[in-house]
């Protein structure tokens, strides 16, 4: 079982790696590429802590093989900020204290960013359903939703609430 050679794009960087077939994309990101921002909470697609954006869609990187990334475009939590400038979702998470332990936070931010890539006018209910695959045990989701809705408002150009 020789390793597979994969050529892909991760956070805008052309990237090559070798991986074994059974390694998930999450294994590759964390163990081969040192991108440990994506977290492993369940390995079954039920917690969303490993959420990445694959060709524009969010997926659980624990439910994707590393070999499947061949020729695709991957964005992880490490690629959400623009250099030193945080994405509005990241900034609003900080301002609203929308994290406690911070373990689910990377997945939530990636998922929320993808939502706002789709629409800048989500209702609270739409945002709640969009984020239903991201478990957070600390916050009760209240401040998370406030942060996401506020980030959407800011990206629409409205003054912060």
């Amino acid at each position, binding site marked *: 079982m020789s390793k597979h050679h994969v050529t892909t794009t991760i956070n805008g960087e052309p990237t090559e790696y070798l991986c*074994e077939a*059974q390694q998930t994309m999450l294994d590759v990101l*964390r*163990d081969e590429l*040192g*991108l*440990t*921002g*994506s*977290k*492993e*909470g*369940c*390995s*079954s697609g*039920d*917690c969303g*802590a490993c959420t990445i954006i694959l060709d524009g869609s969010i997926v659980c990187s624990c439910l994707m093989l590393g070999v499947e990334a061949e020729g695709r475009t991957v964005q*992880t*939590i*490490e690629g*959400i*900020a623009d250099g030193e400038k*945080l994405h509005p979702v*990241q900034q609003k*998470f*900080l*301002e*609203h*204290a929308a*994290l*406690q*332990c*911070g*373990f*689910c*936070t*990377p997945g939530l*931010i990636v998922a929320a960013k993808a939502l706002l890539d789709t629409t800048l006018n989500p209702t609270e*209910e739409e*945002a*709640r*359903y969009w*984020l*239903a*695959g*991201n*478990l*957070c*045990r*600390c*916050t*009760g*989701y*209240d*401040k*998370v*939703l*406030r942060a996401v809705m506020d980030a959407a408002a800011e990206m629409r150009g409205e003054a912060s609430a």
Partner: protein
Amino acid sequence: MSYLDKASLKVVGSRPIRPDGVDKVTGRANFGADMALPGMLWGKVKRSPHAHARILSINTDKAMKLPGVKAVVTRADFPDVPPDRAYIGEAPANLRDMSRNVMADGKVLYEGHALAAVAATDPSIAEEAVDLIEVEYEVLPHVIDVDEAMKDDAPLVQDGLFTAGVEPKPTKPSNIAKRVRFTKGDVAAGFAEAEIVVERKYTTKPVHQAYIEPHACVVSVGADAQTTIWSSSQGQFMVRGYTSRIVGADIASIRAMPAEIGGGFGGKTIVYLEPLAYMLSKKSGRPVKMVMSREEVFRASGPTSGAAMEIKLGAMKDGRIVAAQAILKYQAGAFPGSPVNQGAMCAFASYDLPNVDVIGYDVLSNRPKTAAYRAPGSPIAAYGVESCVDELAGELGIEPLRLREINAAKEGTKAAHGPTWTNIGYQKTLEAARDSAHYKTKLGPNQGRGIASGFWFNAGGDSSAAVHINEDGTVSVMCGHPDIGGSRASMALMVAEVLGVPYDQVRPVIGDTSAIGFSAVTGGSRVTFAGGTAVTRAAEAVVEVLKKRAATIWDISPEAVEWTDGKAVPAGANAGSFEPLDLVAIAAKSTRTGGPISAEIQVNAQGPGPGFATHICDVEVDRETGHVKVLRYTAIQDVGRAIHPAYVEGQMQGGVAQGVGWALNEEYIYDKDGRLENAGFLDYRVPVASDMPMIDTIMIEVPNPRHPFGARGVGEVPIVPPMAAVANAIADAVGTRMRDLPMSPPKLRAALDEQQPRLAAE
């Protein structure tokens, strides 16, 4: 010094961005599983497939021969540990039990019980090796249910266990590890006097803390036994202390590094993997990383107890409760140590009652050993008591909130478990509930409103903190407690307040066990209280040093220097006339005035200040499916002083969401062989974002005089009321009383169906 006057505060009470925030929103923060070392091996655990079995033999030969496998350990590699009590976790732990929970000794006591561990060069190889370990079992009868476990003919989980707390000592072993009792007055006389008596039974299921981060560690043991442990836990000193005892090493040989922790809620106040990784590293001579799978987390760590309860209340027609009795039977799991003691103490703590009798039983069964979970024991008892109070209110025809107002614990009330309350805010939470906009809104069809209250002791104890004035005048703060929910921010706020400097000039760091003095766990809602006391005292000690340095610079007496708004100033006209000196100016001259400016303080903080809360919950019931939707929720709590209000609100909201999960859907489901059927987030159903409404919070501030800023613990009491609040709301909505958790759709629909013919008959 005291900072209880809120009006005088400049930064405490504000809501700045947490110091570790950017790391946590960009993926830079390092949690337990994020650590990697050169030459590192991966450890995996062999676990029992049986609920109860004798281990006849373990053969590790095939596993050892698999290429890539570097070490295998079993019980034979661990020393015998005496049954000493250790008080470094959330609750006193029996070290012998903990050792045998970490690695089974002779018998496996629950499905998932560890009995061997493997280290290999790659996780897949380690998994294969685990499968190659051959174990012969003699399967034994098992017991899962608490009432079954208490029967005379129940299979015995532990050999030779005799119930403690009963006189004379029993002659026959049983699964009942302990009986506790708290009494006040004469409960029989109280029931004789009562005009109405309500007696009901309630049950709860074990629920898991369900932190999203699985347990994880990396352990590196040197040839000289000098050891470094990186792990995610609620206390690096706890990890060091327990691991040292279980592996038989000196405490000084172990340095425990606190990784960021991805949630704990009490479940990471003990060790599971660290002793195994230690032995694997010692045997292989290489660092070993171990990470639990989610399935292992459910099968082998956590949960809190399930329980069966009998609650009896006697009252006068005017609503005065004159007698209260409870029998609480809590599951401990496979080793003694359920939180029944705490549950028994908390049961009636919110009420001013003349006659109380609470009996609690700590009961073993073939389940994983329970671990602390947020206000351990109290939410279970509160579900019973607060439901029963609601039922009593119904019998009396008194509004449930009014019944609580009539009987509320207040200044000077003596609780059944001993203390006399002072400086408590329980009545104020009831007042705030009545005054809230939420309480005044009208409900629609199939909607109902529930009220419930809760109590938690909160904890103090050992904490250390250091404050260093850096060469450039900035401030470094070293704390001994892992930051599980924003405590760096509250520590920095308190230091900034004392020093009179801006918040962002203060940088808090969580120190490893060699960098800061002993500090007990992040647990018991103790960090802001005890850790906050330590950082405040350390900052005050630094202020004294700063004043002396200014005095030296000015060549006047230190008594003639005052510290105001972050600057040393002459105390008055007589002290002389000098330009104020700030931290930058004093730090610049520190070498010439006596050297570095630092202070480290150790405290044993006493008087944490009890926490009381009252919650209001609105639900809507789908009568056809039994589905319950939480429409609106308000949590009201006496928080003492909110150091960083946003994170206080966060604690309240998080506790509510966990409580709603406990109320509606979370439970351990076992098959007939004692195997857990729902060891994953798919069927262990914690609330998701679309299950919850916004959670309103009302913070009542009755300052705790034993904390410099008046803080009291806030993290635990919010999980106490929700189960009863939801149950009471369901009863209000559809007239059906749910006395067994979880109140899941199949159970509620069945209860509604049962009610239909009954209603028709009436």
